[in-house]
């Protein structure tokens, strides 16, 4: 076997291989799931499956990963047979291929090329064991041997003591019976010269009778000579077709558990992005334009004069420069944008797995999957979306029997889609399941002491309870969604992306979750306000509207200032109080400026000295020398070089209106 040592593979090449193979395997998985749902699609998709297997075979060969190459060669052959109509693709085979794909992906993502991929089980599962074609080392075909810790220790100690070990492969005839007896007889014979360390399967294992072959590990203090080996192997035992003895060495298996299904542990965030070359070309064009402007500046400098004409020319150049740089910035941000189908594509697989486990047939439908989103955000959406989909399948969609009773098609439906709304992407996940049972939620919340039994709550307020930490409506903990984490985790992760989550549910009809997340984390639309002479930014998503009000419009209710907004009392908060300065920094006379913030159903009126207006701002993190400040989510640089803090409106509301639900 050819093993490439880690340093032989160039890092860039390695990354490229990983990225490319990951993409290929994801496609592979996706097609297989599609084919499983609609078996007749195999006729058209088999070519693509064949091509992918072929590509991976080629690239892994280049990387010197002979095990991968070998398996992919088999897979490729299999698809070739399907292509020629000589074979079919069963659902079991799809299962095997899906697991194979997962295992290969986790092997490749580990990037530890010095450890060969444990391909043995896949060759066996693919049913290639007996073929033993040229090019495949014989040893690889053999059954992988597993030893427990104690056995492994014994073997290691023997080996270090210089004792010799032999592996014997006994192969039975097709029609063999009483294999245990045959093995016992053979073993007795062999033990005249050596001792038996292990029989696999074990003598008392019923599997032995079913096995095509048995492996024995023999141990000898001094080693056996050719003649003795001949005597041992030549011993005629009934029903034995073939006996093969070779000296054997115990090698501890690299610990690498194979995950059972598609839900692999998330790999470290991929740092590379595949970019449409059109986007790069656009950047190059902008650079070209910038160079022209630069030449213009040089030209002006060389003229060495101060005249009206030079001034006009300079003004024009600066304008051009501004235009190009802002276009350039946009184009640069575009590079980070990836279509959402890159993450949506993995869900049919997850749904297939869960669907099988729960015995609930479910189909998934997509819309708006071409919508583009910042790669950084798209990666962070995978876990919340997976969670919501699991939830929908586990708690939302009913069993086929129940569905039939309520007159629904027995196959459940999940719709996953995205659309752009201004600077935000809204991703919605709907199921046509049972919906959220408000009474149950309420009871549970009372039981968990989240609310008072007498509390008067609106439908929305009850639904929001499902996001409370520690809340779970499922009666029993299941391994699908009940992992000790609730929807509060989903909400927290969406909030960390400066997004929002909304739920809409109708009992008996289904539930829809809407995740509203910004297009990009780097630039947001913000509302700029001034207080105490300092400019501050509030993300526009949290701003409902702004007003100029008179002092007379402010009413006092129970010691708190409120403003009546369309028959609704909105509590007021004076932003300058945030800095512990009551009045000494606001010399505002006349109308007050008011910004209405909203968070769910809670509103807060923020009184500021001045409304500056809307702007696109680049979010900058504050150096970690300053500990996390919940009220401040970052900072941005204004055109004049001033640093403006970005206020976290939700925290501000939570601070001012403590004790509000959600």
């Amino acid at each position, binding site marked *: 076997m050819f093993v490439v040592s880690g340093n032989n593979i160039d890092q860039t090449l390695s990354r490229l291989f990983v990225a490319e193979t990951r993409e290929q395997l994801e496609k592979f998985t996706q097609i297989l799931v599609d084919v499983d749902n609609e078996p007749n699609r195999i006729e058209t998709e088999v070519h693509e499956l064949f091509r992918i297997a072929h590509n991976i075979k080629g690239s892994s060969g280049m990387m010197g990963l002979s095990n991968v190459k070998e398996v992919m060669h088999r897979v490729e052959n299999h698809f070739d047979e399907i292509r020629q109509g000589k074979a079919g693709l069963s659902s079991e085979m799809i299962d095997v291929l899906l697991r194979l794909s997962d295992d290969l992906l986790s092997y490749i993502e580990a990037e530890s090329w010095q450890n060969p991929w444990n391909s043995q089980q896949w060759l066996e599962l693919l049913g290639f064991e007996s073929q033993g074609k040229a090019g495949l080392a014989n040893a690889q075909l053999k059954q992988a041997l597993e030893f427990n810790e104690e056995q492994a220790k014994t073997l290691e100690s023997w080996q270090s003591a210089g004792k010799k070990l032999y592996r014997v492969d006994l192969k039975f005839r097709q029609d063999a019976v009483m294999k245990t007896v045959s093995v016992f007889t053979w073993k007795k014979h062999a033990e005249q010269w050596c001792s038996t360390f292990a029989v696999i399967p074990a003598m008392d294992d019923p599997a032995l009778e079913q096995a095509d072959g048995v492996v024995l590990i023999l141990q000898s203090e001094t080693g056996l000579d050719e003649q003795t080996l001949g005597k041992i192997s030549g011993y005629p035992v009934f029903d034995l077709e073939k006996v093969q003895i070779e000296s054997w060495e115990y090698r501890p298996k690299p610990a690498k558990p194979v995950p059972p299904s598609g839900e692999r542990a998330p790999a470290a965030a991929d740092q590379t992005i595949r970019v449409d070359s059109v986007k790069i070309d656009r950047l190059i064009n902008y650079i070209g334009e910038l160079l022209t402007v630069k030449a213009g500046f040089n030209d002006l400098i060389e003229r060495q004069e101060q005249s009206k004409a030079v001034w006009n020319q300079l003004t024009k150049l600066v304008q051009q420069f501004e235009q190009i740089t802002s276009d350039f910035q946009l184009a640069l941000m575009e590079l980070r944008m990836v279509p959402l189908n890159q993450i949506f594509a993995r869900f049919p697989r997850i749904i297939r797995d869960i669907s099988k486990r729960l015995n609930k047939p479910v189909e998934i439908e997509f819309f708006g999957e071409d919508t583009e989103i910042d790669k950084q955000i798209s990666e962070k959406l995978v876990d919340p979306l997976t969670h919501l989909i699991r939830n929908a399948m586990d708690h939302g969609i009913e069993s086929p029997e129940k569905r039939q009773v309520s007159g629904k098609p027995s196959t459940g439906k999940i719709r996953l889609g995205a659309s752009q709304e201004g600077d935000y992407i809204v991703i919605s996940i709907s199921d046509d399941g049972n919906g959220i049972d408000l009474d149950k939620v309420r009871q549970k919340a009372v039981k968990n002491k989240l609310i008072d039994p007498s509390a008067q709550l609106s439908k929305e307020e009850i639904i929001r309870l499902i996001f409370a930490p520690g809340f779970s409506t499922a009666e029993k903990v299941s391994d699908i969604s009940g992992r000790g984490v609730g929807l509060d985790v989903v909400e927290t992760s969406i909030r960390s992306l400066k997004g929002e989550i909304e739920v809409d549910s109708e009992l008996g009809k289904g539930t829809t979750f809407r995740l509203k997340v910004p297009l990009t984390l780097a630039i947001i639309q913000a509302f700029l306000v001034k207080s105490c002479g300092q400019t501050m930014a509030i993300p526009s998503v949290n701003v409902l509207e702004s007003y100029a009000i008179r002092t007379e419009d402010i009413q006092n209710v129970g010691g708190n200032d409120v403003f009546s907004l369309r028959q609704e009392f909105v509590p007021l908060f004076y932003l300058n109080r945030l800095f512990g300065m009551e009045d000494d920094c606001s010399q505002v006379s006349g109308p007050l400026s008011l910004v209405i913030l909203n968070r769910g159903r809670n509103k807060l009126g923020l009184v500021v000295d001045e409304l500056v207006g809307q702007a696109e701002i680049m979010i900058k993190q504050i150096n970690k020398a300053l500990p996390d400040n919940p*009220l*401040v989510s970052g900072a941005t640089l204004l055109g004049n070089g001033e640093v403006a803090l970005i206020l976290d409106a939700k925290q501000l509301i939570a601070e001012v209106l403590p004790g509000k639900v959600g």
Partner: protein
Amino acid sequence: MAAVDNIMAILNLQFTSLEGGTQQVIFNAGDDYFGIDILNIKEIIRYIPPTKVPKAPVFVEGVINFRGEIIPVLNLDRVFGSASNNKEYTVIVVVETSQKMYGLLVENVLDIVSFGTAEIQPVPEFSNNEKTQYLKSMAKHDDQIVLMLDLDKLVDFEAVEQSMARLKASQSYESSGKRSRSSKNATGE
């Protein structure tokens, strides 16, 4: 102001040409002379008014933009409880320690001094350790004690706040006997 610029330019030039060693940038805060290891200094910049941060500890003056990075600015006088409002800060010393970057508000940078290993002494255990806890070591320079700052301790905000509270308690006890001392005329001449 031109003089300040000049000094800054010379100092910044020196940073780039120095080859390590125990060189300290000396400045005064309150009645004391402090030193910062030159290796921790990113740059000395002219004072720019920091943007105030709500709910930040009092010794944090705010944040500034330093080469595109938003960093907090600390007021040492406040940490040592000797702040007065009519001080004129002229420079901010930008330091970096344990991957954290922050600015120290300073009236004036006085000098850069090299100290040999023999000159540096450990900080004796004073009964009042509110000030000494921020010190790494000390040395003598022109009959002046130079206190060398431990920059990591200063960004442990929680500890600083606790210590400030203790300091305040002890000061109010002191000033009940005598009037609180004014810490003016402490410019570097």
